[in-house]
């Protein structure tokens, strides 16, 4: 059995017939091919899969695709606009906020919500705001630094051209 879903992702409408049990994260990754959102666990602990659903940060592994029907989703691929990095992306780059990069999409998306809720987030606010996101590489210090610094990044820098991987 399949069901129809229509979800707007990064401003583009997508419609597919999916199994009711399909997780939203698998819809994003496997059905529409947006692989920037990662899967790091199977118990909703790691936050690698975080996306914005109607503006709220949600772990997309905890939501069924059919529950996302009619919603407006922003993934990591949708943050940079017109070739300009989002200020939080820029701050992660400037402050070495990533190493292997696997947690990074989830961290950046979560950070957008932390900074939306709190206009003057301190280091401690950010540390607590990241309680649902795990990074195994950085020890968090530069992630926290990046998010705090993002508050003062002007949102108009040119995006670096994404260098392709070695695959």
């Amino acid at each position, binding site marked *: 059995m399949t069901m129809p879903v229509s979800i707007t992702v990064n401003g583009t409408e997508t419609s597919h017939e999916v199994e009711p049990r399909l997780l939203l994260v698998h819809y994003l990754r496997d059905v529409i091919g947006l692989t920037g959102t990662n899967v790091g666990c199977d*118990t909703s602990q790691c936050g690698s899969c975080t996306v914005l659903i109607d503006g709220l940060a949600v772990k997309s592994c905890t939501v069924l695709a059919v529950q996302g029907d009619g919603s407006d989703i922003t993934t*990591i691929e949708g943050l940079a606009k017109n070739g300009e990095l989002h200020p939080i992306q820029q701050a992660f780059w400037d402050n070495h906020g990533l190493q*292997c990069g696997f947690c990074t999409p989830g961290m950046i998306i979560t950070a957008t919500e932390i900074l939306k809720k709190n206009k003057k987030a301190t280091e401690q606010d950010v*540390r607590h705001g990241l309680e649902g996101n795990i990074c195994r590489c950085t020890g968090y210090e530069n992630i926290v630094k990046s998010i705090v610094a993002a508050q003062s990044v002007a949102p108009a820098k040119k995006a670096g051209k994404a260098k392709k991987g070695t695959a």
Partner: protein
Amino acid sequence: MGYVGSSVKRVEDPRFIQGKASYVGNIIMPGMVHLAIKRSPYAHAKIKKINTKKAKALPGVVAVFTGQDLLDGGCGPLPCGWNVPDIKTPTRYALTVDKARHVGDGVAVVVAEDPYIAADAVELIDVSYQPLDVVIDARKTTELEAPLVHDDISENTSYEWALGDKAVCDKAFEEADHIVELDLTNQRLIPNAMEPRACVAQWTDTTEEMIVWTASQNPQLIRLLLSAYTLLIPEHRLRVISPDVGGGFGSKIFHYPEEVITPWVSRAVNRPAKWVATRSEASITDSQGRDHITVARMALKKDGEITGLHVSTWANMGAYLSTLAPLIPTALYITLLAGLYRMKGIWGEMWGTLTNTVPVDAYRGAGRPEASYLLERLVDIAAHELSIDPVEIRVKNFIGKDEFPYQTPLAFEYDSGDYHALFEKATSLADYAKMRTDQTDARDNGRLVGIGISGCIEASGPAPSAVAGSLGFALGLWESGVVRVHPTGKVTVLTGSHSHGQGHETTFAQIVADELGVPMTDIEVVHGDSGRIPFGMGTYGSRSASVGGSALVKSAEKIRAKLIKIAAHQLEAAEEDMVYDRAEGKVYVKGSPDKSKPFAELAFASYTAHNLPEGLDPGLEEISFYDPANFTFPNSAHIVQIEIDPETGEVELQRYVAVDDVGNVINPMIVEGQIQGGIAQGVGQALWEQGVYDESGQLLTGSLMEYALPRAASFPKFEIGRIETPSPHNPLGVKGAGEMGTIASTVAVANAVMDALAPLNIRHLDMPLTPDKIWSAMQKVGEAKTAKVEYFGGE
């Protein structure tokens, strides 16, 4: 150009921050089948029968294969690559045939059109097991009634190993004024890189070629093992690619069953095949870390001089020997027991035993954190018992800066260091004296504040190949590096090292840019694809800069030499009169800088070959294989302050001061990031992390619900400093930076907790130092708040 030494922003970052990375799990191909593996729910059981009928009948299932199918289909056993003398290596197949030997041991594989169907079909496979008795504890393996994990390995003992001078050690204990004894457990850890392992394979029937994408730290090593042992596809028809890899920490070094199963299935069904681990699957299949049971004694003079150390360790190897497993508790553990100290009388002995648990192999630090932990715990207890300040007792025993190179009694020759300066910097950065006075005040107010010190060393940058061979490695431990200059002067760098977060695309470009005098933007670094790079050994043991970087320096030197020849010829000057200007990227005649040839023009000339010196080959590409002369020996002084909540036993990390000597630094930002991440992982072991097996061999911490990884709010801001004593034996003067943080932080934090508990006369608790464990210990000794005991360093 002056890139080396500066915090250049990472060139790889744009793809990661925009969600455009190329992890193996992202690969989608037309016609791809998806794999799911049926795993044993028992830690030890005979497989009586496997019924795959129902699974095969499920719509969407393409095939189901068992261990016997793989065996009949030509798969060889997974080898262990590190063979110490008289080792008994158990046979390990990608899917087990006769018995399951740990929870998670693979029994069958489902091949389906979609991963959901594959997961459904796994549930439909009916395996009838005959459960057997299990053995979990590394020391109980040899007891008479212990079951045998492998019938052909008696007493479950795979190997034993010892090093040191027993006579000198015995004498030190005979003549000791004071002896410290300690029994300890260094608990099982689960590495948990954030990207679960994944493998994709594509067989091309017409050309009989296989491409395997695997989340590995060393694709070339995997290709060799696939080719020579497990899959038996010749190397020239087998390409292995490890694209972006989401962290490894050792766990992605090894050759895993799924790397055999996935390509084998791709060939069997003649379609691209994909397997991606779930986190829970990773918990029962990724090689795990640590798990030592140790009995140790330290001999001292009453003034605090350390004279002897006697260590006996049972190292839990798990159910099979993972690819490098025997290296970890031997040549990366016992050899490091001298630490930063001058003592001579050391004896270390160990037994590598097999149990019904997930195999154990290298995990960040690998042997060295285990050595540091026991040594630095003993030093701390000794300081306490002799009423000497823990910094003072360490400084008193340090090897002096003029004694390098320093031959330890445990085979290693330390390359360089200045441990006194290291500790001076750390104690002044921390304001250690004030920390101690504040601690006394806090104690007077009934607060449980503790200060922890560690002084650690590690051997990084493995290794001289002949030494590795003599210690048991089946291969060499050199590294390869190609510098390919294109006709226009742009440069492609090919390295056998692999980056899975370390930032090689940046640091290696910094190195080559400076060596040749070209802008970094003209350089691209390629790694991780056996179809593009030369054979190389990959990344682990904090070796990439010192071994991989040095190979690139050598290749760049050859490029410079060739360009000098061409320039001399074209400028009609003698070669020895030519100067290679690395700041400007040109070659000129000594004394007449205007008689010069820029880099790009010379590169072009090398390809047109219209006007080259006689006998010189056209083209501009050089390869080097760099075999290091020695390990490098980074070292560290970490100082930590914690406070225990007497109501709950919870530890709050209040300050973390780290001063490390990793030799010269190519990119301070990246090195600091390595130290920070390393510290966090080590603190995780000290306070929260533990892989727990119950007595039936079930892993109780099999997901991130139960296995406690550190979170952002777990840490204060780290205070990080550095001294640099360059390694004298590699051209960059660098030492390893990737593991020092982890090696040093576990014991620093453990020492801090025990320091806080010292007034309660609690001498030692095994890690992880969880609230429950601390609180229970406090209850045993009575009322925490009123206790007061004289303690060192508090005046």
